[in-house]
């Protein structure tokens, strides 16, 4: 795709020849004068941002623990489904590090498996809505105002309508409608991912549309058109890689917000359905544990807060790393 050669040697970077393939180089093309790619620069700034690094480490640790849930529970000889008739609502008893729930199931095992479910839903839905948002956003932005402007008008009308209904209300009706058809669509986890994906792309779409509007008038787009590139090629080969860094930055914050939304829906009983645990549905009847099992109220919530907080910090750190100008304005 590109045959750009670097004339100046890049000091102190760890970019291997494999890494500096076309994708990275094509991004650096527009940064005239800078001999380093946007991603290399961002990575270097990120490496000095210890708060963000700690947050990344915590999220990775939580993800790893969730991933290894079967291994850990086997090693501790506990299970997230097996009930222990000797221990109901115990707060830390032999064999159950974090105690048991009202049915005598090991709380640690349930937290680990719930983490699996919650993180899977949030990451899948974030990536899914990112894909939709970017595609629709580039198309809408590219055609805006032109002979095919009605495409943009229709998309914007739909998005405005969707955004006019408060998120939770929209989620409530869609979840309630789909709940009854769940058997046809598979598990409640898949249904929830689909719902969050198809209702969550509008923010990304607006962002991408705005960026595309600006970039379709830039010289490199005009040059591409002059060379005979078709609309689709301009949109997805020339414009898309350039708006991508803006989107990557929002990913962590999106995942965090999705964890909050998922947990709220599951808490209300419209998200992940028991016996599959999620951090939200583990709090489902928390109010009845106030007397004997406050750990059941505290632990899942603490994990939600910790994860979301770390993701928000990562989001802020990413923005600082990718766009120090913008963050200076805000800070």
């Amino acid at each position, binding site marked *: 795709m590109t045959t750009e050669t670097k004339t100046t040697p890049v000091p102190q970077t760890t970019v291997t020849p494999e890494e500096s393939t076309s994708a990275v180089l094509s991004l650096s093309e527009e940064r005239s004068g800078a001999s380093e790619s946007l991603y290399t620069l961002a990575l270097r700034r990120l490496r000095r941002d210890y708060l963000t690094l700690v947050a990344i480490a915590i999220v990775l640790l939580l993800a790893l623990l969730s991933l290894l849930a079967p291994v850990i529970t086997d090693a501790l000889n506990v299970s997230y489904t097996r009930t222990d008739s000797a221990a109901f609502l115990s707060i830390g008893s032999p064999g159950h590090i974090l105690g048991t729930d009202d049915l005598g199931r090991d709380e640690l095992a349930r937290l680990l498996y719930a983490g699996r479910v919650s993180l899977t839903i949030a990451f899948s839905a974030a990536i899914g809505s990112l894909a939709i948002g970017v595609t629709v956003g580039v198309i809408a932005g590219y055609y805006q105002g032109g002979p095919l402007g009605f495409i943009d008008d229709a998309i914007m009308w739909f998005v405005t309508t969707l955004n006019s209904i408060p998120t939770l209300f929209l989620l409530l*009706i869609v979840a*309630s409608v789909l709940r009854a058809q769940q058997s046809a669509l598979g598990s409640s986890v898949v249904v929830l991912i689909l719902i969050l994906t198809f209702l969550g792309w509008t923010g990304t779409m607006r962002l991408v549309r705005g960026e595309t509007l600006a970039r379709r008038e830039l010289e490199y787009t005009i040059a591409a058109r002059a060379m005979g590139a078709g609309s689709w090629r301009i949109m997805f080969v020339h414009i898309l890689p350039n708006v991508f860094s803006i989107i990557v930055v929002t990913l962590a914050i999106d995942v*965090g917000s999705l964890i909050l939304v998922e947990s709220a829906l599951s808490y209300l009983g419209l998200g992940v359905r028991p016996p599959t645990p999620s951090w939200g549905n583990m709090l489902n009847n928390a109010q009845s544990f106030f007397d004997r099992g406050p750990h059941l109220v505290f632990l899942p919530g603490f994990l*939600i807060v910790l994860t979301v*907080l770390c993701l928000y910090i990562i989001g802020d750190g990413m923005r600082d790393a990718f766009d120090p100008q913008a963050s200076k304005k805000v800070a």
Partner: protein
Amino acid sequence: MGRYVLRRLIQAIPTILGITVLSFLIMSAAPGGPAAALTFDPKVPAKQREAMQEKLGFNDPLPVQYVRWLLGEKPIKVLGVTLWGGRDVPVFDRQGNEIGTKPGTSGGIIRLDFGRSLFYKRPVIDMLKQRAGATVQLGFTALVLGFSIGIPIGILSAVRRGSLFDNSSRVLAVLFNAVPVFWLGLMLILVFGKWLGALPMGNQCPLTIKGCVTLEDRVSHLVLPVFTLGTGWIAVLSRYMRTSTLDVLSQDYIRTAQAKGLPNSKVWFVHATRNALIPIATILGPAIPSLLSGAVITETIFSWPGLGRLSFEAVIQQDYPMVMAVVLLSGVITVLGYLLSDILYALIDPRIRLG
């Protein structure tokens, strides 16, 4: 200004129509759906019920059903001119046989007739009116709390930039944004209601025959839900206010005021605040849908008898007319909220060009 408001109102029409189309489509996809619920009677055989549904028009093409739902079955007449004919609806006996027709009585969405609640067996609009007060009380108080705490924190953070106060308030703001509303509510109930026993754990009034007697009864029941709903607003508003105050503080007129020897408190809280508050007007629009969403969770946790809990219960009870009504209502309120905040923004800042 008048022309701007008029144009914005006209622009809102396609959006509101879109909301009706969207909620109608989602609801008609519901299994069972309104058709089954309306004709449900265990004494009537399934085949008969299908015939009833056919006659009631539930098998008509979706656009026909949509228009009927929107405009109602009662004719619309303006100054003697019939704009919409309406239709006669079949009447069934107890076995489900058609025994004749009568003129339609439903006014349709356009006349704010949302039908009867399947659960409460009362007109939906009456239920909405009855519950709206509690939600307005909760939401308004939460917003006032957010403003009265968030704004001063934001200003102090900005003028003491980099101080311990600034840093800790920023950390707390991020922290509280990461706390799920429902968990915050649960923890507040656990700590203040259960452990300390200082505040009631739910409801709007004491659950006795007398209900709310004193002002203290009302206020004490309001504290926990308002903090649950308002804490997020304190966080958001303090962050916005900090940014906007920092912007203002670097302007010349602030330096002039200081050079003239005005005390810092006056410069910060009078001169700077007035201009720093302008961008905050833009948050009021998005505040309304997010307060409504927050109200669903908060009201459910605290058994608060408002619209939020009504919406949640309607979803659980599959009370379709009610669900449609609350979705439509929340959508319309949102559209109007955005409109209001744009107008407010233009009114308080003459530099804003009405585009």
